[in-house]
Every structure is written in C-alpha cells, then in structure tokens.
C-alpha cells in the first residue's frame, strides 16, 4: 500500500504503518551513521545532552558523497543499519520515532521498536543518485569534523522507503523471503 507521511512522525502515524507498506516521506530527517552514533552513545554514558532532540524524529543512516555546486548533497543512499544496533535501543527509549537504513536488525533493536512503538524503514541500497533527488536541503547540525559522518538535517520531499519492521515487530525481510522461497520450491 502506498502512503504519504510527514517527518517528524507521531505515534498515531507510526502505528498506522504495516510491514510492506511503500511510503513517501516528506519533512525533516537527520542523518547519523557509525561515528555519530558512537559519539551520541558516549555522551549518554556520561549523562550528557545530545546535539539533537530525538523525540518523534527520523534518523537516516546515510553518509553522502560531496555535493557539487548548487546542489544540497551528492549521492545519498542508505547504509547498513545493523552497525548501529549496539546504540539504537537507547535512542529509541529516548523517543526516536523512526530509522531509515537497509538490512537486518538485532533482536534487541526489534524489542525496542515494539516497546517504544517505533518503525524501521528500508530505502533501496545503491540507489544514491536517485534518492538524492528527493533531498531538497541539507545542513550540518553537529560533528562537522566527521565529514561525511556528521549529523545533517535534511529536508526531504517524497523520499521513497518501505516499512520493514513495523511497530508490532512484523518483519518484511522474513515475510517476503519466505514467500518467494516457497514459490520457487513449488515450481520445481
């Protein structure tokens, strides 16, 4: 089912999403990947304040290639989400609403998604040129020294993504793979 949603994203909107829904996201999303997550985690270990308020926000696991003149970003596709798994449950407990990435998540992350009524989207990995067209503005808001790994505030319009893990813990990766594995076997 195709759905249009806005970011930040509230609980009602999150709970209406089902694994397998195709969504177009418009609004504000923040980028953060390995190094930014590590820094945020270290701040939380010391009871410090994060550079952004995560409540109802969407984090996009992405480190863009450099922007050419006149463009907000370069290529901008998702990176593998599982590398953030160590840090994610704590961010979800702080109110993070949604994540955009690609690939599997750990059971700890799935439990935190259910516990906090959050959602995990996948964008198409390796389609960075196409996805960059949906990014209208980009501004570094923290950790500029990290280069591509800095936290960026992005304004996106109709950014395409797929609900992979919904707020009830349904997991499209498992559901869809089973479906096509069976299809091939019956055809044999």
């Amino acid at each position: 089912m195709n759905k249009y949603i806005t970011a930040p994203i509230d609980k009602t909107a999150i709970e209406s999403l089902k694994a397998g829904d195709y969504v177009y996201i418009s609004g504000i999303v923040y980028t953060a990947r390995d190094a930014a997550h590590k820094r945020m985690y270290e701040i939380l270990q010391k009871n410090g304040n994060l550079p952004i308020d995560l409540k109802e926000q969407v984090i996009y696991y992405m480190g863009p290639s450099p922007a050419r003149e006149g463009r907000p970003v370069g290529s901008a596709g998702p990176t593998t989400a599982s590398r953030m798994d160590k840090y994610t449950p704590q961010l979800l407990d702080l109110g993070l609403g949604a994540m955009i990435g690609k690939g599997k998540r750990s059971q700890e992350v799935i439990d935190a998604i259910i516990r906090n009524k959050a959602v995990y989207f996948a964008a198409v990995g390796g389609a960075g040129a196409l996805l960059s067209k949906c990014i209208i503005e980009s501004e570094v808001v923290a950790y500029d020294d990290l280069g591509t790994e800095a936290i960026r505030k992005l304004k996106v319009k109709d950014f395409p993504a797929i609900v992979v893990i919904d707020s009830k813990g349904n997991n499209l990766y498992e559901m869809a793979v089973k479906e096509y594995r069976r299809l091939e076997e019956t055809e044999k």
Partner: protein
Amino acid sequence: MIREIQVKDITENIKEMCINVNYSLSDDMVCALGKAGKKEKSELGRQILDQLKENLQIAEADSIPICQDTGMAVVFLEIGQDVHLIGGSLEEAVNEGVRRGYTEGYLRKSVVGDPLIRENTKDNTPAVLHTRIVDGDKIRITVAPKGFGSENMSRVFMLKPAEGEEGVKNAVLTAVQDAGPNACPPMVVGVGIGGTFEKCALMAKEALLRPVGSHSEIPYIKEMEEELLQRINMLGIGPGGLGGTTTALAVNIKTYPTHIAGLPVAVNICCHVNRHIVRII
C-alpha cells in the same frame, strides 16, 4: 627492450578511472540488471530493479555517483617485466591518482587511517594495491572501488578436503544467505577455491572483475557457477532483500592448486554496483 613509463602516467590514468567507474557501470552489469528486470517474479522486486536502472541513468546524466559509498579503491597493476618505471615511487603515484580522483570527482572519502583509532584520511587514500609482474612491456591497470555494505558480508572458509564440492557449494550458499539484505542484492558473488588463506581471498576479489555472463574455462567449474546462481536465486532474498527471484546476477569462480590437507574457499560478495574498469598503457 626495456620500455620506460613515467609513474605520473599511472597517476593520471588512475585519477580518471576512479571518477569514471563511480559514475557509470560497465556494459555487462547494465545488461544483467536489464535482463533481471524482465525475469523477476515479485512486483516490488521489479519496482526496485526499475529504480536501480533509473538510478544509473541519473548518475550518468547528472554526474552524481551511482552509490554514495564510492568505496575503498582497490587497484590491480599487472606490470610487464620489460617495463622500467621512472619519475618517482609507484605506490605514491597510485595513491596520488586515488587522492585526485576522489577529490576532483566529488567522491566520498571513506577511508580511516587506523582501523581502531578510525580518523578519516580525508582523501580516500591509501588504496589497496595488488601488483603482479607479467610478460611484456605494458601495464594493465584495473580500478575496482569496493563498497563495504557487501564487503562486510564476505567470508573465508577453511574446509576439509573431504567436504568436497558439496562443502564448497554450502559455503557459498551460507555466505549469501547470511548476507541477505545487507549486501544490497542483486549481488555478484566472487568465489576463490584453493591456494592458501590469502590466495583464495584474492581470487574471490579477482573473480568479481570478470564480466557478468562469462564463465570459467574449466567445464565443471562453469557448471558449478550455473548451479550456484540458480540455487542462490531460489533463496527468496530478492532485490533489496525484500523478497523475489533475483538475489544474484552472477557467480564467478576462480581456482588454484592447493595443499594436500586443505580446501580454502573465499566468498567475496559485491552489491549490484559492481565497479571495475581496465586500461592498458
């Protein structure tokens, strides 16, 4: 006859190759993606394959890298034994080419200088350089930037000889199954069988350079490539890992003699952005 080649010519070529390879895929890959779109049984799978085709067109038309992970630059140099390199250090010349290519080409700098301290080198150097001395008076340069979404899912298995052909096939299927959506399928699967621990890993990487659609010259290896591709595409992983019948575009295998006690197998997985470019100077 000794032929002199200036190392600055290597720098210039590598610079251009780093840029070109990140903005357009080789014909074999474009063709394989096109064919996959016609065969894919999942509607969402076809939609994703269409997006990947559109992504390639946008990358080329608007000069945006195909993928934001423009990779760690893997460079192969096959240097003719009658070549005399002049004008500086070969290794520095290669790194200078990578530095200029990644800077002038608006490519992402994805290399950290120390694997644990992890500070970005800010120019994507150093490259991973493999050199080989061959016959002749030419240099064959291959640039193959490698993204790490798929590199992270690659494996080495030190099998027992008794595990034989089935053991090898299971190793490949296990690696692909575990990689699943993380490796940005549809993937290209490079396999090295034999040699030593490091030799099989290098062969798996080299196997990724072989055009998709070509096969090993060894008849039973060619059969194994075909069988494995079919079995991988029955795993159900599909484009983007979201279910479907296109999980891999090719399985390319390289082999080498090995020790009486061993059967090393390496599986180097590459995403659908399987970048490689060759020039001979």
